[in-house]
């Protein structure tokens, strides 16, 4: 389910079936890295949407966690922790973070949720069918990771 009023209505009715929340982590950079950060967010948005379509009935995608990129993600950690705390209160069982920002790797241990790092691919250089095939194959891997996680916990 997406972060839209229609889907949230559905969520409210079938909350017991939705045990997983997906949050994408969006770094925003300026200067030299500006384009790359835009590219990352385009890619992740596509991925998240596709993943949501596959698992509509069991995951809720939150609006992306967006932050200014300045070399160290330490400072955003407390904010994410607050989200996690809230989600746990809401009885969400699985939290999945999707990001192309490899710096999060360093903080992985401190996060409750599962961090999935996807290499960012320059979609802007591809035509539609290449894009489609590529995103499709990434989504497939993601899909496996998520189902695995569900199975581990059963």
């Amino acid at each position, binding site marked *: 389910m997406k972060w839209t009023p229609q889907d949230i209505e559905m969520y409210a009715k079938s909350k017991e079936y939705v045990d997983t929340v997906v949050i994408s982590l969006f770094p925003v950079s300026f200067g030299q890295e500006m384009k790359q950060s835009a590219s990352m967010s385009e890619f992740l948005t596509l991925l998240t949407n596709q993943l949501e379509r596959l698992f509509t*009935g*069991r995951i809720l995608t939150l609006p992306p966690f967006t932050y200014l990129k300045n070399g160290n993600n330490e400072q955003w950690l407390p904010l994410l922790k607050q989200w996690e705390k809230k989600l746990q209160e809401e009885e969400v069982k699985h939290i999945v973070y999707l990001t192309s920002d490899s710096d999060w790797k360093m903080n992985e241990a401190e996060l409750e949720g599962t961090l999935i790092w996807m290499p960012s691919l320059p979609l802007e250089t591809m035509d539609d069918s290449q894009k489609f095939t590529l995103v499709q194959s990434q989504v497939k891997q993601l899909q496996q990771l998520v189902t695995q996680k569900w199975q581990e916990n059963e």
Partner: protein
Amino acid sequence: MSKHRVSRRQFLSYTLTGVGGFMAAGMLMPMVRFAVDPVLKADKGGNFIPTKQKVADLTSDPVRVDFTFKQKDAWYESDVTNTAWVYKNDKGEIVALSPTCKHLGCTVGWNTDKRYPNQFFCPCHYGRYEKDGTNIPGTPPQAPLDVYPFKEKDGYLYLSQAKPRTGA
């Protein structure tokens, strides 16, 4: 086109309400919905969309067929890709099923759970369907998978909007 359209003048007055209008938002919202709805619903239902699937290549094994079309909402047109599971049944008739689970809308796979071969399987809450799309009692879905109307043109499969199965 629509029976409930707000009059033009009314609509204009809503649009012009501006910032002060936030106060009255509670009252305003339902009306705005009416004004916007016809546009949102203007999807091209009933149109057949070409797929890359050759009808002659279909067998009794369901294959995944993706097809893309343009969908318009109030602001922009976007490409939407839909998927169908397509095969020929015992009588040689084409069957094109929607992969959207009738429980809460996840995408079902064919033959993806080893414990239940030759069924459609939903990874979310383990809903299952027979090959013909019938939901298997005791699993969460309460209805059979939707069916795509289809037609054949120049040897290729064309699909339209999936519809709930009738009769059966």
